[in-house]
């Protein structure tokens, strides 16, 4: 009886599907490829999972509220490059990192102000910031300044490359962030606000929830998380790259939808952001390890996305019809 309850509970999680798929891929890879547990492979998996999950956590908070952020890749790139700049200006590591994170949060806050208080659609606003900060990345990295962005302090490189119990510090940070946000979302009133607002914005307004403030906050967190992902990437690769985070926003969006989020809002969780991201990265890994032409990757990811969204839509339609709403 107890076991059955646990099973029901597990099944009711929004990320249940993506979790299953992750396990499936994991088993396939573990059985099918001798190289999967190779240390190099495990490390490279971590190095992509950790930063991407950070972005996905921020994105997921917005998705729960029925919005999204297309500027995460550009914020990631800009903050990473900005961090590299600060580090090479002889600032203490911790200060440089904090300033870079603050910059990301500030860009997110700009998105938030425009969406929440100026009433512009998240699509337009975040496409705007996406282009602005991607453009700035390109400008910086093609200028003479780019040459000087190497040679980081040793402690920063250690953050990116030492291991504790087999995992990078960034992986531990990621786990910590995911756990903290998952607890907030599931256990606190503040966390529930995301779901109330995403589920029924007009009711949430009439019931006095701070809809605008939460919108602003969610975009700011998304900016902060993207910056954290950028800093992680720079620490790991020991260099700022012009292509850091380029085009990643679509991958992150897909990871969130596969991980149980819905663009209509009201559902999802950061655990799903993690499993969705792991799924995409394992898929990528499978293409590499099995030597499949990576050009097929897009087709497979697109197909899975369509499947998830279609099932979601059909279930919702059926329910609305059963209740006589359409």
């Amino acid at each position, binding site marked *: 009886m107890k076991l059955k309850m646990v099973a029901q509970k597990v099944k009711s999680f929004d990320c249940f599907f993506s979790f299953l798929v992750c396990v499936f891929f994991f088993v396939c890879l573990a059985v099918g490829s001798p190289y999967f547990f190779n240390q190099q492979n495990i490390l490279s998996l971590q190095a992509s999972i950790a930063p991407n999950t950070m972005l996905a956590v921020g994105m997921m908070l917005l998705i729960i509220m029925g919005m999204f952020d297309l500027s995460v890749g550009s914020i990631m790139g800009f903050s990473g490059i900005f961090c590299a700049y600060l580090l090479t200006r002889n600032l203490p590591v911790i200060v440089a990192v904090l300033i870079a994170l603050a910059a990301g949060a500030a860009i997110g806050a700009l998105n938030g102000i425009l969406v929440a208080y100026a009433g512009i659609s998240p699509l337009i606003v975040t496409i705007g910031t996406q282009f602005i900060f991607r453009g700035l990345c390109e400008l910086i990295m093609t200028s003479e300044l780019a040459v000087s962005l190497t040679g980081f302090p040793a402690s920063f490189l250690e953050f990116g490359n030492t291991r504790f119990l087999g995992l990078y510090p960034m992986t531990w940070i990621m786990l910590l962030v995911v756990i903290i946000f998952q607890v907030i979302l599931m256990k606190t*009133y503040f966390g529930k606000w995301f779901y*109330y607002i995403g*589920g*029924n914005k007009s009711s949430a307004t009439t019931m006095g929830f701070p809809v605008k403030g939460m919108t602003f906050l969610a975009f700011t967190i998304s900016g902060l998380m993207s910056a954290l992902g950028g800093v992680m990437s720079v620490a790991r690769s020991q260099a700022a790259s012009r292509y850091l985070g380029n085009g990643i926003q679509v991958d992150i969006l897909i990871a969130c939808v596969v991980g149980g989020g819905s663009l209509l809002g009201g559902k999802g969780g950061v655990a799903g952001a993690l499993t969705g991201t792991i799924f995409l990265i394992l898929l990528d890994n499978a293409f590499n390890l099995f030597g499949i032409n990576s050009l097929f990757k897009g087709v497979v990811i697109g197909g899975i996305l369509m499947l998830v969204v279609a099932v979601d839509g059909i279930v919702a339609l059926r329910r609305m019809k059963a209740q006589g709403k359409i």
Partner: protein
Amino acid sequence: MSEKDIALEIRNVAKNYGNIKALRDISLTVHKGEIHALLGENGAGKSTLIKIISGEISSTEGTVVVNGKKLTTFHPTVSRSMGVAVVHQELSVFENMTVYENIFPYTEGKKAFVPKKKLIQEAQKSIERFGLNISPTEKVSNLTASAQQMVEILRALSENANIILLDEPTSGLNAKETEALMRILRQLREEGISIIYISHRIAEIVQISDCVSVLRDGCYMGTFVNDESLTEHMLISHMVGRDFEKSIYAKKVSAIKDDTPVAFEVQGFTSKKGIEDVSFSVRKGEILGVVGLEGSGTAELSRMLFGLQSREKGEIYFEGNKIPHINPTEMIRHGIMYLSNNRKDMGLYFNMSIMDNVVTPSLNSMTSGGLLSEHKMQDHTLEFVNEFSIVLDSIYDKPGSMSGGNQQKAMLSVCLGVHPKVMIINEPTRGIDVGAKLEILQFLDKLAKEGCTILCFSSDLPEIITLSDRVLIMNSGKNAGIIECDEISETSIMHLAVMDMKERAAWNENS
């Protein structure tokens, strides 16, 4: 009664939306431990008043005093902290959340963490109190509409408020659930809680309330103590009772002959939610008014008739032939046009010019040599501009530059461009001034005389009385009856619209 007994006092409250006066000088007092009903037709201002008390909108003038304290800022959180809970007319549950999360959405004090176990237990208790069979951990999206409504009521009752506002709480409930609600409300009254209760079911009001305040057209008509002398008929006469002699409206004298062929016939329209077996027929050139209070299913019926909403059963016969597929394209092909009640969202294209709007359905006949002819489109539009005397600067302006009345005329022009045989019209004169209103009513009358059949869905009773040859009244999703022209009056319509079927039969026998 002393000052201490007063829970809520409304003093000279008025609310204006632009030039429209939704509420004028309302003053009323609600005592502690009282069930105070608000009664009035659609648009009388009941919901507006509720929204002011609950802090969703601010009043233009006047003061609201809650538990001895004056409301200075109008915000939902402020009202709630002063002890006001509200159940809205529209279902406002969070379908993505569980039942207990819907019943207890607010923080208790400054608590950050959700005391889940405790809330589930309390939710279970309040569910049992109503004798309901819902699990507190069920997702609300999996519940039936009536269970969802019960969840919302439970939410308001669980807030420990001492003033509870219920706006049409029973519109989606069945008899058993309504009975349970009544029982709980009486219990709350014993506990000294004040309840403001809005319902269109007049029998319910007489049954439960201690006193009844009546609103009409945004004005306060008086508060009546519900002692034994209060009857449903008295209340109805306070709700209606406009002076027709002095008004602009003239009662119509129908000129439809009995042997006129039926143009439009509806059989057995039924939807999953709301509409139950509605049948009627309209003769050629007749204007059939369709009236019902909110929640009676008129809006749904009108959308179903044009295929904008799915139906479970029901056929439409047009000039004797069954229409095989009821969808907008097919209906327009048969010459049946639909005029939405919402000019902004479902009527005009506000980012295109007035001319582009007017020619929309007639584009096929506007071509010369396969291309759209500017000349033909201008002529077509100007024809309507003259016919309706639409006031505008240029037909190349956007519809937003015209007044509401002229926008409404433009919308009619759009429909008339294809020479419709049947028109389904919703609220033809909502939100427009009296002059334009009369013009539109006269025009509709003329149109019907020329042979167009009109179904007019309206909540404006005087308009219905002026316009209709017959009136169909909807009540609780059913066809409550059709009144012939010479028997149409505000009172006869209201009786069918507000009373439930059984009581009406009893009343008919007595009178």
